[in-house]
């Protein structure tokens, strides 16, 4: 790329020039994959940018973007950037009340939203957001009679008119843009405190995109499915930065319900998903295989054994026995290939997971069936990643080596520190926070505890502040334990307690799909989550899982004392709407501990049953209470010897 291609608008225009007929964006709509080429995208963006300009959008202004992954919303980001503005994508599933903060914090004047649902929320928030003046919507359905809002078509029509009236305007605006302009502002999910607007420049994100693309040799012929929340940095990297950098094709699914179908149809070559998605997929696979006829199950098990034995090694290019090679080839024909196919992963060259730790079994499963799944490590502040796993150098328990051009070191407290071109410019209007996060040497403090192994790979243990200690002084890394529990398909969510206590106890959320299927096969009737969760049989099932985790923990001297000695199954699913999870579905441990204090007390108090009444919010916004008597179960823990045997 020539040196002048230092902003996203310029990159986009370059693609429109170099590969005008190459598909840039696809969207499953009206039954087929509607396709826009780079030239068409550039056109659309131009019209949109001019439209925004005609409505008074100026350099430096913020454009809120709210909705599912729609081509027009992606284009809106580019349009804002063309004008020197800053797109601010927001989590589309947040309620109106949560909008208010970001809209106010970012001083939003313009918002482009997806549909009636988002319009309603924005309008609900509007009285508290004095700056908000312009609302534009993509899908006109149900919006016929709304006053004072603008349709996307109308905006573009105005833009074309404006463009005709001011022919040189658009190009001049693009020319004014500089590499160090802020290209996007992403709000951190805010595991703690209020969200902060992370301001990233064109150069930072382009550097990140370039690094990733070169690292994994991504080019125009690649294809990704854009289905992750647009407000998340990962999606911004993959669906905007790398898209516009490499010139490949982004594909927007028809709706949230059809992601899996759409994934299969598109068959992306480059894929990115948080561990949860991979986990769900694997759970689906296992559930569906349970229903298969016996011979098929036998074949599946037989070849999955083979894959476990040599699949990952084969993918890493390590030598394996000839007999295994033959078996693997047969397995590839009978099981792995079809499996990749039904999962929509046949064409995947590179898949990444990040955002949370991924279970070794899970990770190994995908790699063993031939999906080149890798981990990366990073945050919003580092443009999504700072460590990557290189092909052939994938280790299950690490997040890889520092990405090209990135410096990573471990701070004195064991915290991971990062320095490089893709670091954030600042937190918006939060110089204090900025100063706190970036030290004098320019290192960004990630807040994660980790260490480098002898192989140069970084290993992350937990959030630095979450790593605690048991009363005995032994290290207690709750995330680590929770993740281990969550690696079982039956466990959807787990919350471990133990900091400052004498032992570790846990809350468990069962996975209704997996456990429900399990129950059905045993002819166990149940009426819903709460009922299912209370079944003694289910308790027994989960107890076995916990026991297994204990066995594994026991085998590691550092963690042996972190074995879960008691647990209970929660009567409701943890839900972001109840603030128990973040929007990225991370557990808010302290909130949960506070909310369910009575349960925590019961766990440590040695009770076997505890009554609880909980406030819940229903989908329609109403709230109510749920009451239940929860059983608490003891689980055996292992001494080092027993552990070795059990493991």
């Amino acid at each position: 790329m020539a040196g002048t291609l230092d902003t996203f608008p310029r990159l986009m225009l370059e693609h429109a020039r170099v590969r005008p007929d190459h598909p840039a964006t696809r969207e499953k709509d009206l039954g087929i994959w509607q396709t826009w080429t780079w030239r068409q995208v550039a056109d659309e963006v131009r019209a949109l940018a001019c439209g925004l300009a005609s409505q008074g959008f100026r350099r430096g202004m913020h454009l809120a973007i709210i909705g599912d992954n729609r081509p027009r919303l992606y284009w809106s980001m580019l349009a804002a950037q063309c004008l020197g503005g800053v797109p601010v994508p927001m989590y589309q599933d947040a309620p109106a009340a949560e909008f208010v903060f970001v809209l106010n914090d970012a001083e939003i004047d313009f918002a482009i939203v997806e549909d009636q649902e988002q319009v309603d929320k924005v309008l609900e928030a509007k009285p508290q957001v004095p700056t908000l003046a312009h609302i534009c919507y993509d899908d006109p359905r149900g919006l016929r009679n709304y006053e004072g809002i603008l349709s996307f078509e109308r905006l573009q029509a105005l833009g074309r008119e404006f463009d005709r009236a001011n022919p040189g305007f658009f190009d001049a605006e693009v020319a004014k843009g500089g590499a160090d302009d802020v290209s996007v502002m992403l709000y951190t999910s805010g595991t703690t405190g209020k969200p902060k607007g992370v301001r990233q420049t064109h150069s930072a994100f382009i550097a990140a995109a370039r690094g990733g693309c070169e690292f994994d040799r991504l080019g125009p012929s690649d294809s990704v499915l854009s289905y992750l929340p647009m407000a998340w940095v990962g999606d911004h990297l993959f669906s905007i930065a790398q898209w516009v950098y490499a010139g490949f094709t982004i594909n927007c699914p028809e709706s949230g319900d059809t992601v899996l179908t759409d994934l299969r149809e598109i068959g992306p070559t480059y894929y990115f998903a948080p561990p949860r998605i991979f986990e769900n997929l694997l759970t689906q696979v296992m559930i569906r295989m349970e229903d298969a006829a016996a011979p098929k199950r036998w074949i599946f098990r037989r070849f999955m054994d083979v894959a476990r034995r040599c699949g990952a090694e084969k993918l890493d290019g390590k030598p394996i026995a000839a007999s295994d090679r033959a078996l693997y080839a047969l397995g590839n024909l009978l099981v792995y290939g079809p499996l990749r196919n039904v999962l929509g992963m046949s064409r995947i060259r590179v898949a990444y997971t990040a955002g949370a730790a991924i279970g070794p079994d899970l990770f190994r499963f995908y790699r063993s069936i031939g999906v080149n799944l890798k981990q990366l490590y990073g945050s919003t502040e580092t443009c999504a990643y700072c460590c990557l796993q290189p092909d052939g150098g994938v280790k299950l328990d690490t997040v890889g080596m520092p990405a090209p051009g990135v410096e990573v070191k471990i701070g004195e407290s064991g915290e991971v520190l990062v320095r490089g071109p893709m670091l954030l410019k600042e937190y918006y209007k939060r110089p204090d926070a900025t100063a706190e996060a970036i030290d004098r040497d320019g290192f960004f403090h990630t807040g994660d505890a980790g260490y480098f192994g002898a192989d140069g790979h970084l290993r992350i243990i937990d959030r630095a502040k979450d790593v605690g200690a048991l009363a005995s002084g032994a290290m207690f890394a709750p995330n680590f334990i929770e993740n281990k529990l969550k690696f079982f398909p039956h466990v959807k969510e787990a919350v471990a307690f133990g900091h400052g206590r004498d032992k570790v106890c846990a809350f468990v959320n069962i996975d209704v799909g997996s456990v429900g299927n399990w129950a059905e096969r045993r002819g166990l009737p149940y009426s819903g989550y709460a009922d299912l969760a209370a079944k003694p049989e289910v308790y027994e099932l989960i107890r076995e899982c916990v026991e297994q985790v204990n066995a594994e923990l026991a085998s590691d001297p550092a963690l042996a004392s972190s074995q879960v000695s008691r647990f209970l199954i929660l009567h409701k699913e943890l839900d972001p709407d109840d603030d128990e999870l973040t929007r990225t579905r991370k557990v808010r441990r302290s909130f949960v501990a506070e909310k369910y204090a009575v349960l925590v007390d019961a766990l440590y108090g040695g009770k076997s049953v505890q009554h609880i009444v909980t406030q819940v919010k229903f989908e329609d916004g109403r709230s109510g209470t749920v009451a239940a008597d929860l059983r608490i179960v003891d689980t055996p823990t292992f001494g080092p010897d027993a552990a070795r045997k059990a493991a």
Partner: protein
Amino acid sequence: MLYREAGQFKSSYAADQQIFPIRQDRIAVGAVLVFAFIVVPLTADQYWLSAILVPFLIFSLAAIGLNLLTGYAGQLSLGTAAFMAVGAFAAYNFLLRVPGMPVLVAFVLAGACAALVGILFGLPSLRIKGFYLAVATLAAQFFIVWALTKFGWFSNYSSSGVINAQKIEILGYRFDSPLSKYLLTLSIVAVLALAAKNMVRGTVGRSWMAVRDMDVAAEVIGFPMLRTKLSAFAVSSFYCGVAGALYAFCYLGTVEPEGFNLDLSFRILFMIILGGVGSILGSFLGAAFIVLFPIFLNSVAGPLEHAIGVKLPAGLMSNLELMIFGALIILFLIVEPHGLARLWQIGKEKLRLWPFPH
């Protein structure tokens, strides 16, 4: 298992609505065509060509015809053979009486004649349904065969009522070897099968299925009952007519009206029941089964006698064949009313979902 569909997405309606939207299917169909047009001619002997493949193709065509009427439009007909007879005799007469008539045109006109007769006998379908209609189509069966026997003009006053199909000559090339007849039949059947597939996935096919599934609703959304049913009779009879012409010209060479008897009608009905009601593919599968199965039984009988050294009672195999056919019909209706085609479909679904069961 063999189906790897990930990455096969459609970005236009044209691509989405093609006959075989799945790439592997297209490859398979291509392979079948290559096999039929190239491999078979290179390898098959005369027996296979003229005694099995040609009748198989012709019966497939007739079965498609019946399937359009019965499977798609829901009008049960027991008069298929009669419409074939119309086609055979019409083609003969066109070639006999119109000097310089090209054979293919004669075939088309023969189909058209059959279509006209089909429309005539389809008229009662407006007032009567179900097996009342089935019985009415028997009238066509008996009447047409009788008329062809009775009026000497149809058979050019041949003393026996038998007609000798004329030589087939297209653009100066004589189709008289089994291979050339096979290729001619194959081409015609392939083209017509494609056309049938096109029809059933177009408006006319939907109109037939609508009438079949819920006739009042069909009328309410604007399918005129008269035109829809008659179009089904016409198209169906056209196919049967062409099949009849091929039966006379490419297969037997000489035919008499009695050859197109009720038994043949039943045979074709069985083809669609076993093969799959409402499926073009099923028509082929059913025809293959009905053509091959008796031959198989018959040809194992002799060697079997030799092998076990016991003389089988005369007619045992033939009677067993009747019984097996009958039992199979019942079995299929009970177990898989959509026939072999559905089994195929299920198998394909399984392969597409493999390793998952559903």
